[in-house]
């Protein structure tokens, strides 16, 4: 369809009702809009038309045979009858054929009660089956830990097949065999690889594909549904939480065309399993002489107040999680600042704070999520966007399908589900050179001289050609963007990458945007959970110390809000060491971990996802509030309430809130005028990174936060973190290592035994060793010098 001219409008008549629609539209689109009910199984408004279930047959005047409404374009003057005898006979006939091979055992089917076939069979089916022959039986397939199969129930609508090809971008499902022997599946043994695979559960109109973790645990009519916001990536996908009593049973997507359309990632869908993890903290606890005791809330709060009050302000810190709600982060910083300390940070994976003062107040996407689709070109620096923000990657995929040119500068050649026009795959140090080369090429193309600062950074001459191609593409595209991803953010030269990205963006007439990592990364900046900026990202006179400076300079009192130091920080070992030296540590968290038990003195149990009201600000700047769905476990309380009471106990003014909405509204007023502009320039061109063998790490999709790390189903997928040192074949040959060999990975003072895997996606001088495992946590920063020593165990070389 051309978008330049408005299509001609056509008038038709359906069941005596006059309808208008654009020429070329399918009949079912009009009837759906007019709420005229036509039964269907294979049609889905987000998928291509297959017209293979034949359930939507309707009568059209002057057409001898019934026509499928999903594949019949409207014509001027067309007269349609959806409920005439002829239409009904066709629909009932189709239903009878569909039921020929479908088992009639709804009571033992997990889809029972929310099944499209069951529902329609009620209206279109016969009371008695005329089919007395044997029904076919199809063996079930194991397609991974997330989706359960019952393929005998499959009616071959191919929604799942079309989804995997058209939306997920990986054609892994198919229809094999033919005729009565047709089967839907992946044919080979294995698991689905898509991070959006759970959506086929919702798409499947029957009980053939159901949720494996949810299977046989509840019936649809027992569940209470409440809207909420997914707490993982910065998309803030709209979700519906289904609870039975005080337990969250499952999560399904809610429709919001401007954010997640109708899809959610598997991370958003299955992470709820973590809520009931065995290591949930359900009572306040205090450590005396190295032993933990359960105590009353009052005792614990008093201990915290005493501990904080006796810590001198410059030694007091709050380290907060960017997955905390806006209200929690706002109250945490308000409390800290009231106690005289600006040592508060949420940027747990930030690798470089040198130019933090010139960072934008709103470090978001720089455009709306839906706008990503209409980009003509984009350069993404340091991001595995497909796994980091699956829904944003889906939008980019749509742009790419429409002809957009996507370019990547990455330290690992990640697998994407869209075509990449140019990729510069180069180690961490080279990334700066490659980005500088793109900036220089653009400046030259614009007839400007390249400043010496940028010229001096162009050290990676091997990328020149690619850089010129990227520059040309960005320059010619009417709408282009530059994005900085998670790996860029943890880069020791993030300031330099950002400055260069801003130069590229302004030279190509686009904007520099950011791919925030967590549900509330952007919100945390607005809430004032940063040392150098206050509420609404305002400048403060008394700038405090950020995480890196706190680790470096030490602290004597610390509040951890939702943070697991061993898994949430870029350089866990050093953060843990600093916390061990810290005299008084409070952990406010829904869970407990060995590390927290080791470093903390008081633990306050707080509500987990689904148990508290709150607000997240997503990447595009939309404030999305949600309410609690179930009560917190045990004695756990919503963190905003805990912080409020703590404020009261400490006699701090302005903590008399009665609801989280009150907190939010106060913050919202302070944020008026912040806007969603991300164009503020950086100006840092000095690299901090040496050359040599360099470790580079991504945070695997199911290691990003406390909740997903505790979801058993997600941890069984192929995307779960593994402790492997991936290097190129050439690098392996140079170091005399072979695939599968055990080596010692040495980073600073840390040393871990690890298996070497040769991988064509890794460039020279780079060791790809992901975060997310206990051993990786003990190594050091995600990007930094590393060496691999042959041999393992004692008495090594």
């Amino acid at each position: 369809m051309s978008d330049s001219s408005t299509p001609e409008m056509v008038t038709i008549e359906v069941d005596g009702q006059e309808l208008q629609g654009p020429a070329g539209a399918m009949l079912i689109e009009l009837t759906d809009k007019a709420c005229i009910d036509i039964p269907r199984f294979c049609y889905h408004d987000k998928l291509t038309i297959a017209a293979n279930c034949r359930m939507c047959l309707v009568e059209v005047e002057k057409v001898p045979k019934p026509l499928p409404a999903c594949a019949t374009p409207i014509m001027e003057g067309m007269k349609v009858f959806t409920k005439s005898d002829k239409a009904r006979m066709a629909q009932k006939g189709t239903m009878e054929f569909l039921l020929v091979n479908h088992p009639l055992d709804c009571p033992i089917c997990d889809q029972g009660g929310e099944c499209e076939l069951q529902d329609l069979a009620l209206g279109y089916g016969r009371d008695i089956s005329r089919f007395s022959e044997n029904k076919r039986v199809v063996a079930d397939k194991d397609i991974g830990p997330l989706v359960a199969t019952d393929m005998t129930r499959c009616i071959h609508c191919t929604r799942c097949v079309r989804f995997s090809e058209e939306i997920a971008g990986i054609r892994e499902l198919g229809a094999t065999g033919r005729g009565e022997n047709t089967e839907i599946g992946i044919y080979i043994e294995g698991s689905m690889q898509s991070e959006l695979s759970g959506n086929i559960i919702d798409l499947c109109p029957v009980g053939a594909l159901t949720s494996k973790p949810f299977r046989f645990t509840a019936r649809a009519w027992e569940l209470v549904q409440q809207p909420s916001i997914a707490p993982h990536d910065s998309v803030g996908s709209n979700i519906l939480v289904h609870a039975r009593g005080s337990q969250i049973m499952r999560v399904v997507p809610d429709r919001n065309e401007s954010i997640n359309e109708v899809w959610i990632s598997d991370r958003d869908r299955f992470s709820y399993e973590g809520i009931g993890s065995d290591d949930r903290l359900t009572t306040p606890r205090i450590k005396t002489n190295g032993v933990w005791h359960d105590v009353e809330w009052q005792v614990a709060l008093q201990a915290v107040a005493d501990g904080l009050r006796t810590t001198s302000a410059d030694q007091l810190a709050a380290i907060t999680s960017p997955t905390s709600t806006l209200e929690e982060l706002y109250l945490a910083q308000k409390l800290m600042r009231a106690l005289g300390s600006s040592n508060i940070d949420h940027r747990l994976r930030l690798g470089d704070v040198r130019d933090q003062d010139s960072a934008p107040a709103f470090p978001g996407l720089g455009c709306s999520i839906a706008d990503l689709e209409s980009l003509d070109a984009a350069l993404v620096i340091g991001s595995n966007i497909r796994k980091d923000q699956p829904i944003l990657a889906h939008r980019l995929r749509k742009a790419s399908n429409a002809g957009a040119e996507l370019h990547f500068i990455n330290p690992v050649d990640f697998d994407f589900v869209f075509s990449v026009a140019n990729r510069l795959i180069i180690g961490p140090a080279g990334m700066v050179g490659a980005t500088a080369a793109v900036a220089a090429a653009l400046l030259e193309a614009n007839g400007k001289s390249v400043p010496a600062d940028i010229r001096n950074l162009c050290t990676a001459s091997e990328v020149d050609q690619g850089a010129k191609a990227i520059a040309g593409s960005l320059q010619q595209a009417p709408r282009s963007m530059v994005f900085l991803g998670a790996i860029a953010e943890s880069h020791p030269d993030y300031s330099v990458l950002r400055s260069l990205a801003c130069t590229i963006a302004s030279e190509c007439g686009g904007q520099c945007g950011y791919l925030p990592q967590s549900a509330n990364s952007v919100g945390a900046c607005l809430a004032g959970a940063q040392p150098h900026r206050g509420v609404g990202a305002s400048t403060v006179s008394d700038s405090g110390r950020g995480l890196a400076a706190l680790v470096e300079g030490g602290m004597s009192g610390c509040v951890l809000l939702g943070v697991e130091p061993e898994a949430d920080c870029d350089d866990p070992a050093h953060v843990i060491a600093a916390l061990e030296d810290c005299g008084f540590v409070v952990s406010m968290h829904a869970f407990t971990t060995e590390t927290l038990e080791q470093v903390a003195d008081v633990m306050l149990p707080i509500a987990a996802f689904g148990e508290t009201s709150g607000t997240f600000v997503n990447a595009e700047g939309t404030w999305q509030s949600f309410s609690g769905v179930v009560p917190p476990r045990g004695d756990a309380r919503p963190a905003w309430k805990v912080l409020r009471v703590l404020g009261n106990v400490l006699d701090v003014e302005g903590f008399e809130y009665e609801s989280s909405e009150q907190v939010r509204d106060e913050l919202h007023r302070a944020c008026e005028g912040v806007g969603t502009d991300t164009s503020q320039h950086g100006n840092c061109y000095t690299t901090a990174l040496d050359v040599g063998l360099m470790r580079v790490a991504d945070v695997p999709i199911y290691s990003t936060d406390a909740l997903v790390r505790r979801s058993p189903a997600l941890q069984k997928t192929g995307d779960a973190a593994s402790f492997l040192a991936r290097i190129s074949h050439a690098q392996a040959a140079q170091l005399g290592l072979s695939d599968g060999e055990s080596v010692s990975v040495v980073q600073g003072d840390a040393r871990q035994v690890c298996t070497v895997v040769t991988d064509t996606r890794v460039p020279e001088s780079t060791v790809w060793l992901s975060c997310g495992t206990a051993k990786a946590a003990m190594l050091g920063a995600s990007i930094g010098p590393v060496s691999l020593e042959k041999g393992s165990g004692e008495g090594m070389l």
Partner: protein
Amino acid sequence: MAEQSTSYTLSETARTEIDHWLAKFPAEQKRSAVIAALTVVQSEEGGSLTTPAMDAVAAYLDMPPIAVYEVGTFYSMFDLHPVGRHKISVCKNISCMLMGADDIVAHLQNKLAIKLGETSSDGRITLIQEEECLAACGGAPMMVVDGHYHENLTIESVDSIVDGLE
């Protein structure tokens, strides 16, 4: 994917032959050659296809493997289990049926002591499970032996054809 562990490599002859077919289609529609490519690989592999062989075809034609599996499982001329040295398909569609195809099938089953879809114990002959119209109704009843049409069959002519197979 890191590295597809494809344990199957297309032979030089197979590649040449597939390239011959590829030349007939537009460069961006390599998948058009999938039936030809599978036929080439199947005949090289002793009459049947394996998953690694289909993966190799998928990689060569730049197709998702599942799309090749779909084609491989759809057509009756592709076999996914090991077969005998010769394949016999007797047409059982309407014209051949009226002209006595059932008797021919019964005779073959008795003669070889196997059922449709099975391979004789000496590994000589496989009777293909099911064959619909092979477009030779004028010569019904008919059968296809290793790709060659034999028409106007009688029990005697079937015997002589089958006995002549090594």
